[in-house]
């Protein structure tokens, strides 16, 4: 068991606070293992399906950083729900610098 903390608000507005997250765990894995609504992680962390889309709290954005080109291309496929601090949860791996991070799970793209 790790000791990192994460606050994740799901698509129903429920806030999930995790306080024993291990280093290296991705936000997708964390959300999926704990049944966080809206985190599906269909492709298993391959940055290839955009079903673990989160909005990073603005105050954490500099530490998390922008998506690379491959991730951006995937986020572009759900452009209707993309925001400035959009990231795929599978691409954010927990580390001490991100201890305390807050994210909101993005709704599914509709039309």
């Amino acid at each position: 068991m790790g000791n990192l903390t994460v606050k994740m608000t799901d698509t129903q507005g429920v806030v999930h606070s995790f306080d024993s997250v291990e280093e290296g765990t991705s936000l997708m894995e964390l959300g999926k293992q704990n049944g966080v609504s809206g985190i599906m992680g269909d492709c298993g962390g391959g940055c290839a399906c955009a079903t673990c889309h989160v909005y990073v709290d603005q105050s954490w954005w500099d530490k998390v950083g922008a998506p690379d080109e491959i991730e951006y291309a995937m986020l572009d496929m759900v452009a209707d729900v993309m925001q400035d601090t959009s990231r795929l949860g599978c691409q954010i791996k927990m580390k001490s610098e991100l201890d305390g991070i807050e994210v909101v799970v993005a709704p599914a793209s509709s039309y």
Partner: protein
Amino acid sequence: MATQTTEEMEAKVSERVALTSDEEKVLKEGSLTDFGIQAQPREYFRAMRHGDPVHYDEKLGSWLITRHEDIWDVQADPHTFSVHHGYHDFQARGLQDEFRGYLREHGGGYFPDAIMSDPPYHTRIRKLMENAFTAHRVKDLEPRITEVVSNLISEVIERGDGKCDAVKDIAVPLTIRIIVEQLGLDQGMEDEISKWSGAVTAQISAMQNRDTMIENAKLMSELQLYLIGKMKEREQDPREDMISDLVHAEVTNEDGTKEKLTFEEAVSLVRATLIAGNDTTATAIGNLFYVLTTKPGMAELLQESVQEERMLNRFVEEHLRNEPPVRALSRAATRDVKVNGTTIPEGAHMLLVYASGNDDETYFPEPREFDPTRPNLGRHVAFGGGPHRCIGLALARMEVKVAAREIARQMKNIKLAIPEEDLTYLKTVATRTIESMPITYEKR
């Protein structure tokens, strides 16, 4: 959504749309077993989607799930809607014992498809395969894929007659060469692998009779014996390829202990990777030639799109939505369950009709328009969804993208060399595959 309860899912009923008299007729008389409907299914799909979204196709003996929202719900619940039963219980319908017996006697064994399974077993098997084709790993393969595709198209062009079969000369060998290289199989066996692929995918076609079942079992036996031989080689002498990885792979159990994949499981996974890794992507590339030659403005749109990465990515994704290679895959209900107001009985076979979901007007307005600017492109179900979402999706996208780029770079003025109505489609419920597509073109 992930946390929707089954009760909530079962309580959902969405509005039916009034049908035209033509739609009424096709809904009443149509069946996905009909070869005409298999070739041109959109009207049948629309009639179901509008008037009877969870429709029992009596001749086929399957419940067809045709609305996007319902496909999404069903694929998110792998316990109620079983892939294991949907696939294995209905394999070689009615001829199962004979089929399995043949493979045991002639093909080195009957190897159930480890990936066509349900959680928690499926989760462990899938985990093994997930790292092979992540989007980042596939991006690293792009230069090599480009080389393979570029060479293949150049070889075709060098014949100098300005004619070829876009399916048999380009789409099929292209995808085989790439997956063969990844797996570590032998190059130069495209004809055999293409035939073997047909025999394996026939298992989900629902179209086999006894003669074709035996013929397919014979081909599958050849395939299995070939793969087993290669796997035995790698057991002794591992190399940097996927076969070696799978032969030596360990599955991590829930309690953290590791277990070696059985040889039977490994054979089934090598087989699945080879077949899934070429057949459907070849169909997607064949379909690309089809839209380029039949849909006005598409050749120009492709030329424009290849100028810019983002546009090209979107072009490819819209192509997959517009012409999904896999039109329907199986589930079986593990209990009596209500989907959009209709009760599906326990044990019944179902098809998630992806091609209908991708045409669902409530998600994709004007679905027959080819519009790469759609803001919700990622919601299409060409790759399915949920825990069984296509594992090779990033590789498939990359192959289609590179093919699109190389076609645009090397060929122009591409035309169908036969009337469109003479194109024939593979007889199957599972994919919409053009069998052969003679074209003419000029070298760019």
